[in-house]
């Protein structure tokens, strides 16, 4: 199972070489075996998954063309699943069972995928370490005392631990590439608008995007093909046709121009990460890619801009969790009065964790009368400058490369006292969200201590194909992707 890829599994199910049920049982067994130490799942949907697998096995003819036939998949717990608890790792949604499926869930199931469970993440996807989950953090399969990253930590961990060859994450500020890198899997954040957000519990609407965690670049292309494309339920999803991503996987990077923002990736990057990055660039150059220096002068402002835009939108997006219609409702504290504001205050005080509250307060402040121009508007202007930096770079290069993260996975609790320090770890990933650009992280080495390192490629809008082509060619020339954490082979 652990060496299985989506392409291999779906092929085996389509030809009848393996059954969806057997594959599902093995995934669930691996999940059971690893879950006590990984804590990657908020909800396991074993019965539902087995019933679904059995349904596929009953009518094999229906799934002859299905690209994900019988492939176990783990969904980040901020994607709505009809009849299956969806919490966003928040106490306030602890009991929430959506009456509808997110569009990506519909598309994955239509492609033959079998949902095995809902993965742990930072509460409302706010965090870079999974420590902001109301259910406690998921753990890094390579080092259980370390973070699997965030916010999609559980998805990356589930992928790395060989539970599900496909996991679905969402990404607002690096939440796919970052955990992919530090868990040693491939993570792809598509162009904003490429994948429908309908049914994704919103964190920051102008930044959120959904994408896959997979073992291989080819698998990422397969999953993206299944979920990309216009959705009439999401007004921000784009009508741009979906190219056949697998066709991009030629193994040939000759002539590809790879931009390297040397000014950005100099200081503050861990020595081993910097070394792995340089080796990855050399490997690409060896295979015929051309390395070109590029400038992204406004990229250093990405973190502050991100924390203004994202928190502003979050403060509004999270207003609906008021205890009135669904989710948690807490009666007002004694003496707080029987009135409505007291119920709101009590519900939200107990329902949200500290990081979510911090961001709601920050975002509320940012949008307040008298501060809007100085903060939100200014941030949006700088956001435009960051986008222009990339536009200029893409006049000369086909993709921009940088380390996905400045350091390998840090220890759980390491940044607990200083959220700002943790925010700074997202320096390489958030600019792709701000600019709405596709970003892909592919494993590019390990530290001496055995922690994975990721190479990030950022592309032009709607040019996932180039990222996939370059990453696939790189992957073919390396063996990093074949490395498995001990827990995956247990």
């Amino acid at each position, binding site marked *: 199972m652990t060496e299985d890829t989506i392409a291999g599994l779906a092929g085996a199910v389509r030809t009848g070489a393996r059954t969806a049920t057997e594959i599902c049982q093995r995934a669930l067994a691996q999940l059971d075996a690893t879950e006590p130490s990984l804590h990657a799942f908020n909800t396991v949907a074993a019965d539902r998954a087995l019933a679904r697998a059995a349904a596929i096995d009953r009518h094999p003819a229906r799934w002859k063309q299905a690209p994900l036939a019988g492939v176990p998949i783990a969904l980040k717990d901020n994607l709505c699943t009809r009849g299956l608890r969806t919490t966003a790792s928040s106490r306030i949604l602890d009991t929430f069972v959506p009456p509808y499926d997110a569009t990506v869930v519909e598309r994955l199931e239509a492609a033959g995928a079998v949902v095995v469970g809902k993965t742990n993440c930072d509460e409302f996807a706010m965090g870079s370490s999974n420590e902001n989950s109301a259910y406690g953090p998921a753990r890094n399969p390579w080092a259980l005392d370390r973070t699997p990253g965030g916010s999609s930590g559980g998805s990356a961990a589930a992928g790395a631990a060989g539970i599900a060859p496909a996991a679905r994450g969402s990404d607002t500020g690096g939440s796919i590439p970052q955990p992919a890198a530090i868990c040693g899997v491939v993570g792809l954040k598509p162009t904003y608008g490429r994948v429908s957000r*309908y049914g994704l519990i919103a964190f920051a609407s102008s930044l959120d995007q959904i994408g896959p965690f997979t073992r291989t670049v080819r698998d990422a292309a397969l999953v993206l093909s299944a979920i990309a494309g216009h959705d009439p339920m999401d007004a921000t999803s784009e009508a741009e046709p979906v190219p056949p991503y697998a066709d991009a996987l030629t193994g040939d990077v000759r002539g590809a121009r790879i931009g390297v923002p040397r000014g950005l990736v100099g200081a503050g990057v861990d020595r081993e990460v910097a070394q792995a990055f340089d080796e990855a660039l050399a490997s690409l150059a060896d295979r015929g890619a051309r390395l070109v220096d590029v400038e992204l002068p406004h990229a250093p402002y990405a973190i502050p801009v991100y924390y203004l835009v994202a928190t502003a939108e979050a403060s509004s997006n999270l207003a609906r969790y*008021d205890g*009135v219609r669904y989710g948690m409702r807490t009666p007002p504290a004694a003496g707080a009065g029987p009135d409505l504001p007291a119920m709101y205050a009590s519900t939200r005080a107990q329902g949200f964790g500290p990081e979510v509250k911090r961001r709601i307060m920050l975002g509320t402040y940012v949008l307040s009368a008298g501060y809007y121009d100085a903060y939100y508007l200014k941030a949006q202007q700088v956001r435009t400058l960051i986008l222009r930096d990339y536009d200029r770079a893409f006049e000369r290069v086909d993709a921009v490369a940088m380390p996905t993260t400045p350091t390998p996975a840090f220890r759980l609790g390491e940044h607990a006292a200083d959220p700002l320090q943790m925010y700074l770890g997202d320096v390489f990933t958030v600019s792709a969200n701000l600019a709405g650009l596709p970003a892909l992280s592919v494993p590019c080495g390990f530290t001496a201590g055995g922690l994975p390192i990721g190479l990030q490629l950022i592309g032009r809008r709607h040019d996932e194909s180039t990222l996939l082509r370059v990453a696939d060619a790189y992957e073919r020339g390396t063996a990093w992707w074949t490395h498995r954490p001990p827990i995956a082979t247990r």
Partner: protein
Amino acid sequence: MSFEAVIGLEIHAHLRTASKIFCGCSASFGAPPNTQVCPVCLGLPGALPVLNRAAVDAAVQAALALSCSVHETSVFARKNYFYPDLPKGYQISQYERPLATGGVVELGAGAAARRIGITRVHLEEDAGKSLHAGFADSDRKTYVDYNRSGVPLIEIVTEPDLRSPADAAELFARLRAILVWLGVNDGNMEEGSLRCDANVSVRPAGAPALGTKTEVKNLNSFRFLQKALEHEIARQIELVSAGRRVVQETRLFDAASGRTISMRSKEEAHDYRYFPEPDLPPLVVDAARLERIREAMPELPDARRARLAERYALSEHDAAQLTQSRAAADYFEEAIAAGAPAKLAGHWMMGELARALKEAGDDIAASRVGARALAELLALLDAGTISGSMAKTVFATMYASGRPAGEIVAAEGLAQIDDERQIVALVAEALALHADAVAQYRGGKAGAFGFLVGQVMKAARGKANPARVNALLRKALEPGP
């Protein structure tokens, strides 16, 4: 010191679309609570809005009818506040870049005309409805019905150009008439499909600076609007005259007492934290679409009034009466197209038809005597087949039975006797029977003539053409040559 009031209105009007503004749920009124809801209009986690094009078209029609400039690009914004009937914790509205700005509505005519500026027209969604009463546990609980959540609205904001409560009420009525005329709003204020808030301040007459304003909310009839403003203006004048200050605040009109009461002060006012709605791209209404919408619009009330007055030589008053609603104007022109003489049709619509509709409580669009049926009746009257009084009787039968005029006239033998020989015979008969009256008349008692006319009509069972009876009777009574 004399004071002047300065008034501006904010009108919220539901748009008559089949579905809600951001989802496919029915926007109709009156369904059982919470039966017209979905993840989008309930604000469930992950649900997203998608704009209803029909709502945009309706809003653009309204904006054009108010002579506004419709902007090619407008932007939706979130208005953030907490309330149980607002499921997302924000209302999707438009703020910095509304759909349309810079319109005007004219009240009155000639020297007394007042131009009232329309500041803006923007699109937004309605909230649900909090039900504070009507349940066994209403003393402890409030229920919420989300059927109304997401029903499309336009907000029309006027300039502070109004100077009297009567003008404010007239403007509100005019706006209602225009929206209903366009068919974009049903005009039903009891069901809340048209609501009005008023901003009002007072200042010494002629002073250039504005006084401190208050906002009076939820004025759901023309009369309430006028009464609320009258009270509020008097209250403010009293304060200012006593040397006290008007507090900027939101006030509610209490219809029972006829007073306005304080709801919240400026200090308690919400900071709505508006920002562009990231879930919706900017709304683009390009020139081609604008033209399509303009072409699909009905002729507007003022234009139609002028045209009818000119074309059918109607008085100002009659033309205004006949264009009070689009249905009335349509009725009028349909009757004319079916052959009714214009003056007669107008006269009958404002007379018999209006009376019958009022008695039956019918709208003219649902009149039991349609325009063609009325035209048939008026043709019989115009041709002299029936008399004017007979026509009224026939009309009453038509309204009660729905039968056409010709059929009633034929079946009940009501056609007018117009034939000279028949009338001469009737006259001769009457003269023979009432020789005494003839003698009186000839003896100089003019009143006897009326008696004899009555006798002829009686013998004709009222069907004889009165003008002919008059003429032939007079001829018969003349002294012989």
